[in-house]
């Protein structure tokens, strides 16, 4: 039984709150600094002593990003590729997950192990053969190249996530369809899909996030400025303007918005995806 309100006990509580504040500073200060720098002028960013709040609050960096069609194109490309991959991944993974979750068949165990192990294949290992393939099929510097290659990395996670979700749904529901003479295909679309929406949302969120963050393939398999995605755009900005730090920070803020919004609106789904495969 813990004794409360002794002086020692109060001291521990105070110490804990001090530690929590220190932790908060560690976690959030770099992000706060990005945000506040994006509202500063480029000269104020390196003012001495540093200004914690922007002294002359300005939206010039955001105006520069949003007024530049080249940069808007980076955003369009990122949204388009991530959106397309998400739709394809969720559809294909749903079918596979249904197979894994509702059927017993030869080779199930080894296929499952195969899919778990593909999660850990180093992207750099696949990059060189992908580059060779993409060039020889003439799809270098196209959306198709990015969509196909991203699919390979999103699919294993999506299958595992969806299978995990479908396994939580009672089998009686789809068996009822079978008793009525329906096929497994009708059971999937009439019964499973409507009640799997939370799982589908979680899978979509995680897939979108993987694509939105991808850097290595976008860097190597595209070349023209009009095909670049946001992460590459940020890198280009760094080389091009000899350190327009406020613009780089504004673009980083804009590039983080989709993930921040998804996180704030759908925290549950977000965390479900982020910890998928690691906690069982």
């Amino acid at each position, binding site marked *: 039984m813990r004794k409360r309100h002794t002086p020692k006990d109060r001291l521990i509580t105070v110490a804990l709150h001090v530690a929590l504040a220190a932790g908060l500073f560690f976690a959030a200060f770099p992000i706060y600094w990005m945000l506040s720098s994006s509202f500063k002028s480029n000269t104020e960013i390196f003012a001495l002593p540093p200004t914690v709040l922007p002294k002359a609050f300005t939206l010039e960096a955001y105006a520069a990003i949003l007024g530049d069609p080249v940069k808007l194109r980076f955003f369009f490309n990122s949204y388009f590729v991530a959106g397309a991959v998400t739709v394809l991944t969720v559809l294909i993974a749903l079918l596979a997950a249904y197979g894994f979750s509702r059927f017993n068949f030869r080779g199930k165990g080894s296929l499952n192990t195969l899919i778990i192990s593909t999660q850990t294949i180093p992207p750099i290992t696949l990059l060189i053969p992908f580059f060779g393939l993409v060039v020889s099929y003439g799809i270098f510097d196209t959306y198709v190249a990015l969509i196909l290659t991203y699919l390979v990395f999103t699919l294993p996670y999506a299958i595992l996530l969806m299978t995990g979700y479908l396994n939580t749904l009672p089998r009686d529901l789809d068996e009822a369809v079978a008793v009525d003479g329906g096929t497994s295909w009708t059971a999937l679309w009439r019964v499973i899909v409507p009640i799997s929406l939370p799982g589908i949302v979680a899978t979509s969120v995680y897939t979108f996030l993987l694509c939105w963050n991808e850097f290595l393939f976008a860097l190597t398999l595209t070349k023209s400025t009009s095909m670049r995605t946001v992460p590459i755009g940020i890198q280009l900005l760094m080389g091009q303007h000899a350190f327009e730090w406020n613009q780089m920070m504004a673009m980083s803020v804009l590039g*983080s918005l989709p993930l921040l919004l998804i996180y704030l609106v759908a925290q549950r789904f977000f965390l479900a995806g982020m910890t998928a495969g*690691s906690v069982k």
Partner: protein
Amino acid sequence: MTRQKRSHHRLKRAVAPYLYLSPSLLIIGLLMLLPMVTVIGYSFQNSAVLRRDPSFAGLKHYHAIFADPEFWASLWHTLYFTCMSVIFHMTIGMVFALMLNSDRINPTLRNILRVLYILPWLFTAVIIAVIWRLLLEPNGVVNSVLMQMGIIGSKVEWFSSTATALHAVTFANIWAGYPLFMVSLLAGLQGIPKDFYEAADIDGAKAYQKLIFITIPQLMPIIISISLLDFIWTMQVFPLIWITTGGGPIYSTEVLSTYTYKLAFSSYNLSQASASAVVILLISLGLTLFYIRYQKAR
């Protein structure tokens, strides 16, 4: 149902799972397993990708890699970067999870802090790299604060001095990666039955004893599986290092992924890069086997 109808139904049931799995298996087979075989093939060819009829090179490219001091330096940097990252991800994640799980803080504050502590996780590697470049600029806020506090005498070029660059990128990666541990351990903490602690209280156990004899053993499966996954993923980190230091100065932050990338796309030595990529693949596969065995044993 007639017998014929029933056997037809059974046949459908037997074929159905393969049909449902076929699109996924086709993609994984064509775009993952086949490229893996291809890259192994490249590593035994001269002028792979670049020439239509490459000649057989034997183990030449592997010899070249293993004779290259830069490769060994990259391997060492990868190990340092990965081990330090995993150790600190685990420690910070554990401390934060324990603090958030304490019943000494008010539930509202707990929820707010939980959201804020996860923040570093929501940012793309490229953005994390850019943020830390800004913070650690020679004229940036970190130097300015450290100099005012008298901790450093002059401006430190964190990312462009060979003495500090590897530590600086490792630090940025530690900051970026602890939330995975924190979230998983927090979920694990909430799953430990309360009676364990009540029984320990009755026996008069001290807080640290409860931590060592109840909490940590109960969390061990999570700690081990997340550490393995984190190790495998951290070993493959590319954008953070590419954007902060590009592997420099003078190879001091070169890791296996940047080393391989430069071989392939700066030197256009795709054969040798393939050999290096195969080495990375083998290391990852070894760790993955270990991970899968562990997961199955659970």
